[in-house]
């Protein structure tokens, strides 16, 4: 974990004091709402459908157990006993008061947590691979570079009043567990042929009204040039992004309107103009940061897997969980465990304070005190010894956190929707709950295989519906909730935006429609073919036929 020193802590303390004064000035009337709003947003505080909502930052999705305990404390002290983990690896509290928010932020600061730049037209939380530091396939630890970007972007004097929000995502492996191509800037860490560390740079991706898979604008950016390049991109965006229309203000619109080649040349020209000496990240500083993320030596254990197999033989339930909710660790004998926040019929991404406290304890017992948040609204314990899996599993079961559904049909991403969000047109949580209940049978889920169902309550697409194999978008049709169905999205790898299949459905209809889509897949798939593969082979035709067949 990145551990704050006096520099980091002082900055945080000064931020807490500054916000306390800003709140006072608002409550006293020295600041109007129009003046206060951007300041409040830059500290993650929204005025939402029911109350103020606070979005606490979880930088690159990494938490210590003590930080998780503090998040639980905040839930039970300032909120209604629960929190919601988001598709940007942050956590949201829905029932916050402005007058006590400064105290809340002070409490967070005691454990190096904050809500800095989780909203507003500035650089937001850098999201990253939740398996960073644990996965066998990584080229380098995404958290190191995410932390460097975090520091560079925090209270950046030049880039705090951008045309619109700005989101980064970093993956350290070829497997993209951060959906990097759907971000304003996506970075993939790679090595050149000569072994030099660098990045593939994708700029101008996003979802929302105009979903775009980010084009690659630099196929190898040496690591030493990272901040200089980002400085160039941000300056071009700050100066030339549109400010007349908030729906056309993201960098993806600028890239599209200039064209990738022209945009890239402008960035390159600015890059050339900048003095490299101003942007070098010193080796000592990189190593200082890297050391903080390094895991203490883990003893490889080749035999434990065999011993584990024996026990699993006796427990099909445990096997099911192990199959879907664990992932290979780079050290033999260890595993990366996903904690499912998608209980059947539950609210995706929600956790109670009690659960959060318990997860913190489990992290201490089984995962070197580390927890991660995924953009799919689940949690991860990254360093679990396989000998501990049985005990861990039974503890998670007791807490209703062991649903064996990671990557399967009931591992649904859903935004808060109209139940919580003033931007929404329709509710998303009840749809998620009903789909989850419809497909609760585990045998069926495993038979269906990997399936990303994503639900957004409005076109802002916080539920990532564009990137779902099956995407659902809630709309308002003459005062009624209506749901559009898209197929063929892909969040990672060969990222793709889903396409709408036909007319929308009502609340009952959309759940039936999802079932129709899945049963169509089951009936036309070739042996071993995944949903996404079948869809690619057949196109929409068989699905449309079954969905809109008048019989």
């Amino acid at each position: 974990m990145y551990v704050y020193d006096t520099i980091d802590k002082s900055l945080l303390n000064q931020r807490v004091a500054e916000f306390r004064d800003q709140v006072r000035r608002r409550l006293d009337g020295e600041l109007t709402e129009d003046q206060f709003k951007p300041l409040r947003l830059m500290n993650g505080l929204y005025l939402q459908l029911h109350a103020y909502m606070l979005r606490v930052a979880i930088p690159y999705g990494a938490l210590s157990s003590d930080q998780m305990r503090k998040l639980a404390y905040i839930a039970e002290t300032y909120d209604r006993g629960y929190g919601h983990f988001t598709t940007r690896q942050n956590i949201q509290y829905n029932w916050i008061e402005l007058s006590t928010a400064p105290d809340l932020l002070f409490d967070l600061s005691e454990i190096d947590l904050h809500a800095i730049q989780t909203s507003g037209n500035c650089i937001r939380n850098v999201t990253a691979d939740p398996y960073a530091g644990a996965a066998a396939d990584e080229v380098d630890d995404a958290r190191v570079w995410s932390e460097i970007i975090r520091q560079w972007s925090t209270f950046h004097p030049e880039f705090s009043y951008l045309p619109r929000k700005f989101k980064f995502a970093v993956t350290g492996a070829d497997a993209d567990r951060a959906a990097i191509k759907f971000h304003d800037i996506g970075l993939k860490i790679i090595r050149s042929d000569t072994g030099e560390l660098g990045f593939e740079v994708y700029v101008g991706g996003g979802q929302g009204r105009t979903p775009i898979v980010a084009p690659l604008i630099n196929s190898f950016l040496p690591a030493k040039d990272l901040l200089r390049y980002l400085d160039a991109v941000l300056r071009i965006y700050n100066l030339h992004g549109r400010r007349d229309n908030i729906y056309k203000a993201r960098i993806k619109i600028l890239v599209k309107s200039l064209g990738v080649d022209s945009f890239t040349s402008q960035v390159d020209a600015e890059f050339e103009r900048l003095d490299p000496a101003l942007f070098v990240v010193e080796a000592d500083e990189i190593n200082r940061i890297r050391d903080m993320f390094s895991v203490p030596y883990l003893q490889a254990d080749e035999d434990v897997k065999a011993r584990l197999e024996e026990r699993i033989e006796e427990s099909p339930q445990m096997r099911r969980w192990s199959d879907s909710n664990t992932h290979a660790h780079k050290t033999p004998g260890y595993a990366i465990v996903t904690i499912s926040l998608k209980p059947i019929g539950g609210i995706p991404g929600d956790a109670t304070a009690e659960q959060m406290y318990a997860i913190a304890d489990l992290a201490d017992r089984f995962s070197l005190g580390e927890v991660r948040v995924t953009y799919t609204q689940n949690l991860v314990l990254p360093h679990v010894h396989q000998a501990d899996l049985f005990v861990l599993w039974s503890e998670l079961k007791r807490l209703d956190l062991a649903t064996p559904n990671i990557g399967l049909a009931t591992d649904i991403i859903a935004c808060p929707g109209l139940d919580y969000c003033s931007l929404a047109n329709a509710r998303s949580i009840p749809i998620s709950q009903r789909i989850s209940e419809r497909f609760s049978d585990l045998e069926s889920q495993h038979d269906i295989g990997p399936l990303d169902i994503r639900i957004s309550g409005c076109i802002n697409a916080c539920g990532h519906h564009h990137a779902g194999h099956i995407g659902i978008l809630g709309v308002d049709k003459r005062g009624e909730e209506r749901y559009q169905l898209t197929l063929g999205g892909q969040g990672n790898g060969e990222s793709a935006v889903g396409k709408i299949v036909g007319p929308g459905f009502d609340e009952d209809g959309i759940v039936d429609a999802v079932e129709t889509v899945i049963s169509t897949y089951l009936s036309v798939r070739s042996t071993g073919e995944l949903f996404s593969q079948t869809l690619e082979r057949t196109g929409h035709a068989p699905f449309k036929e079954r969905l809109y067949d008048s019989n």
Partner: protein
Amino acid sequence: MTVINIRGENVDQTWRDVEVAEKTRSLDSVILSFASLKEHIETLDQKSLSRIGVRLTVNDEIGEIADHARHIGLIDLVFPNFKDGRPFSTAVTVRRDYGFSGDLRASGDILPDQALFLARCGFSTIVVPVQFPVKQFKTSLGAYTIAYQAAVDSNVSQVRDLRRSAVEVVAE
């Protein structure tokens, strides 16, 4: 009109807003519009330029006078709306790329809470909007003694600059 420097102290206002060169006999200590300056710039020697100021809106392309910028006495960048952050980038460019060393002024719609960002982007003076007390600007300038980035003009006391492994302590 109240103008402060980046330590929050009042500075005497010696510049006159003239906009159009033809409206004044002497170009000494006048602030012209960008259009007017461009019209006359070729006729002005370095000494005359150093006694002139120019006001740029966000629609003015300062690159058009890049070669002359460093000789100008004062550059005033107007914020049309405090949420429009373009002048921050223009300021950085003017200081860093064009080597401007004169008075870089921020005017227009500005919040006190932006004061430190202005200072760190290279602004040297701020025209205080009438609805805000000067005191609040001074408070905001002192809100942070720490920063994560080196600025164009570092005026926080400690900078965790990723370029350097040691923390840079900058004189105020």
